């Protein structure tokens, strides 16, 4: 455990939390599907940062890097599928507005 771990953790902990906050805000309030996906990306950024910081502090940086790389690849796959879905929705409603995706209710 690095000596200056507490300071690092608290500083970057705040950074990660704020990034997650921004990401969730974007996902919740955006009316454009692509903005929602961008929000998702920001969330992923935050989490990746958290893993790297923890890895660095604990001295497991190699493991952290492996996790980060795997995480990034998985996110790519998810984003590709998400974009595919958004395009199909666009084909149907000719708009990428989140309000179109609200008719399954009750």
């Amino acid at each position, binding site marked *: 455990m690095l000596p200056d771990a507490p300071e690092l953790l*608290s500083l970057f902990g*705040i950074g990660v939390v704020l990034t997650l906050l921004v990401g969730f805000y974007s996902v919740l309030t955006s009316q454009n599907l692509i903005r929602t996906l961008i929000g998702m990306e920001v969330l992923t950024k935050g989490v990746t940062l958290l893993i790297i910081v923890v890895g660095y502090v604990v001295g497991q940086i190699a493991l952290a890097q492996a996790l980060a*790389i795997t995480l990034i690849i998985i996110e790519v796959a998810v984003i590709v599928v998400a974009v595919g879905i958004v395009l199909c929705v666009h084909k149907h409603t000719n708009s990428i507005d989140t309000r179109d995706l609200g008719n399954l209710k009750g």
Partner: protein
Amino acid sequence: MAGTDTMDTMLDILLVWLLVGAAMATVMTPRILWSVIGLAVTSAVLTILMFRFDSPLAAVFELSVCAGLIPAIFISTISLTQRLSPEGMAERRREKWRRFGLLPVLVILVGVALMQVHIPLDFVAPPAAKETDVRNVLWHVRHIDLVGQIAILLGGAWGVVVLLKERKRAA
């Protein structure tokens, strides 16, 4: 690059602010294109941070994939989907502060609040890792994850095939 103390902490604080600022910029810009560019910038800042935490391989990956590939995908999606009409854009700009005005306030508030909070780290530090080379870790320790990655990439491929390929009859 373990820096000296005050200089480094200043650098760290700057980088953290840069990261959060870029994220907020990405979310708040009215134009979707700028939003994607903002995402790329955020990714770049993250890469710098990764270098700071001497995890070069992950940083390169992050840069190439998240700053390169994903913005490319987004831009192609934006081009495929219908452009916002001019008055739509004007209306969006007016609306910008109403919808996103709250974000900076929230960020500052939470930031200040988190400064006060102090979570005790009262646990015995785990032993440092024997294996230091990412490549060995990835291949020997994280074997199963590679299989997972292959599977998910194949899945992604099928996603594209199923979702986007023109079908003989309309779905």
